[in-house]
């Protein structure tokens, strides 16, 4: 939790956001049928689907006003306006936070729906654990920037639908790209830590965890729990061959 001053400043900002949110709920609820017929049902106010949202919106507005009053009395507004005037440096903690957010967002919205699930998980674990387990800010920034650079290239590929065109000529084209990405990341990592024995040992553990986790999870969910994976690409196809031909 934030410190007291920061907390009151945050209360000041969130109370305003919540007030706007409450007003928005009421505006949306006012468009719902209060008296007109809907679905063959003649509405009155107590049957209307708008009743509950109106109660929620009103309650949020009242509570956010109380929060605003409290935060203003506690000096939250003063702290907010004072800090707006001065700049702020990004701390290591906030850097770690934003790196995690970028990793989560890129994995969930970019990679998992488009790439073989096994490869998505390997990439996520490899990058996430490397960045934070090495525990050196210099390495953290370099590895993160490498990841972001490749992710932006892939994002452009997906935005301009080049992946669909290229996948027509070779079905597992995007999976191959990600596999190459993973290999490049491993090589880059190895180059960065080349003289540090402790980090090399950590890197071996990272590789073991990154590859063994999806190696266990994917078959368990696909063959034991019968859950189809989000995207089944080349690697999952290989698993299918092993499972159905050899086992």
């Amino acid at each position: 939790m934030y410190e007291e001053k920061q907390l009151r400043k945050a209360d000041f900002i969130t109370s305003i956001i919540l007030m706007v949110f409450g007003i928005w709920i009421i505006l949306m609820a006012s468009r719902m049928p209060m008296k007109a017929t809907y679905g063959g049902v003649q509405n009155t106010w107590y049957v209307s689907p708008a009743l509950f949202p109106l109660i929620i919106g009103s309650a949020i507005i009242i509570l956010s006003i109380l929060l605003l009053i409290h935060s203003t009395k506690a000096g939250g507004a003063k702290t907010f306006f004072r800090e707006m005037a001065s700049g702020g440096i990004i701390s290591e903690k906030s850097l770690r936070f934003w790196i995690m957010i970028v990793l989560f967002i890129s994995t969930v919205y970019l990679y998992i729906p488009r790439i073989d699930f096994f490869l998505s998980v390997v990439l996520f674990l490899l990058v996430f654990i490397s960045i934070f387990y090495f525990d050196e800010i210099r390495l953290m920034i370099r590895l993160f920037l490498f990841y972001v650079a490749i992710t932006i290239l892939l994002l452009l590929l997906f935005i301009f639908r080049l992946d669909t065109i290229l996948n027509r000529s070779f079905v597992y084209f995007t999976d191959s790209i990600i596999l190459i990405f993973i290999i490049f990341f491993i090589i880059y990592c190895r180059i960065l830590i080349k003289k540090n024995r402790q980090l090399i040992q950590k890197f071996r553990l990272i590789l073991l965890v990154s590859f063994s986790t999806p190696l266990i999870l994917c078959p368990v969910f696909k063959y034991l729990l019968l859950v189809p994976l989000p995207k089944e690409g080349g690697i999952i196809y290989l698993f299918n061959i092993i499972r159905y031909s050899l086992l």
Partner: protein
Amino acid sequence: MNVIHQFTLFFQQLGILGTHPVTYFILFPSVVMGIIFGAMPGLTATLGVALLTTVTYGMSTGMAMVSLLAIYVGAVYGGSYASILINIPGTAAAAATAIDGYPLALKGEGGRALGLTTTASAIGTIIGMLFVLALSPLISALALQFTSFEFFLLAFFGILISGTLTTPDLVIKGWIAGFIGLFLAAIGRDHLQFYPRFTFGISQLDSGIDVVPVLIGAFGIPQIIQVIKDKITVGEAKKFKRVFPEFKTIIRHGPDILRSALIGVGIGAVPGIGEDIAAWVSYGVAKNSSKHPETFGKGEYAAVISTETANNACVGGAQIPLYNLGIPGSPPAAMLLGALLIHGIQPGPLITFDHPTFIPQVVAILFLSSIAMWVSGMLLVKQVIKILRIPPPVFMPIIAVLCIIGSYSLGARIFNLFLMLPVGIIAYFLTEMGYPVAPLVIGVILGPMADENLRRALMVSKGSFLPIFTRPVSLILFILILTIMLSQTKMYKKLKGYIIHRFFKDKKHTGGND
């Protein structure tokens, strides 16, 4: 269905489950997984139950409940490991245990402390389980008299009390979190007229927001972010010798155990507040009623026994309103509710008619889980401690992957995964700003119940709120709600201070003069 009949069914179910070998194949691994989840700082019982819900989706209801209850019981107990040996509570429920557990470990009595917590936790679970069995027929019978107004007020009361008691900062933040949860529950087509609310034309939102991804997001993502961002490391665990059951010490503290179990069950039965509150209240009461309160905080056995008995008794207590009213008594119970709905079991007053053996079966599972937890705790504590040595930057990303696949696998909907992440990030910000997550989750779970029952009640009364004041249970709930809301005003606090000063402090003075 009377209490004796419940006990008969309980023994029948115990016999059926106890003689089924598959039960033990599921029970023991689930308990051990629960202990690991409880022991690892950053992981919670709710997250463990949520992740296992997705894994047990394809199982029969009975076996799924074995797994889910086992992980729940194990996780609540497992928090004591890190509390005692490292002074970092594995779960919020074990925070109170650290106060006296860690000093015991420093004195070289870590093994003894673990023996006490293991046995106390098992006894607490068993006592909680007995209350579930004994009280369920009475509460069901009472709940059958409830109409829509009572259910609406009960849901509203649950959200308010959860917000009031679980907030780390201002009470209004707890209430705001509850109303945000109610808003999330309002998304989708309403159940009475099927009108789309806040769906923005997205067809995947028509059926509303799934509870499981919301819970996984709300309880998993903020913890992962916090542990990695703050570089939380688990220190070296204090060495200890063997773990003994410590029966003699337990028997000597019999009154403490009974009192703590009653506190745990009582607090568990209140909607939305959980094992952590039960443990703290029990600790406070144990200290106040001790002949030597100055020993608390320095390694007092009664403290460790009280907290662990209460938090495990709370497991049973939380299930009393869950099965009989459909209102979860704690966040992990909220997750259990989600699991029950997925398996087609509708909790509520009719559960004893629709599924007459369900509650006795659940109680039998709780009994077996407490035994499995005790055995695992006695034998496996050193192995579980080794798992605590896994560095968080290695362990937490694996949990993140489990959260991702867990959110997706229920229904194989990628939309749930897309929903889980923003809910998790918002929950993280809310936690950092002092908003509790439990009322938000309770709001999501109880929102549909509150919405439908309010409108149904008003339909019957033709828009009149008068039945709230003419029906006794409604009136009591209304007064409780009003009291909770007014208790935050300055006038109430002044009045309370005046009454305490006038009637209690004055009496002390007159007593001394005699």
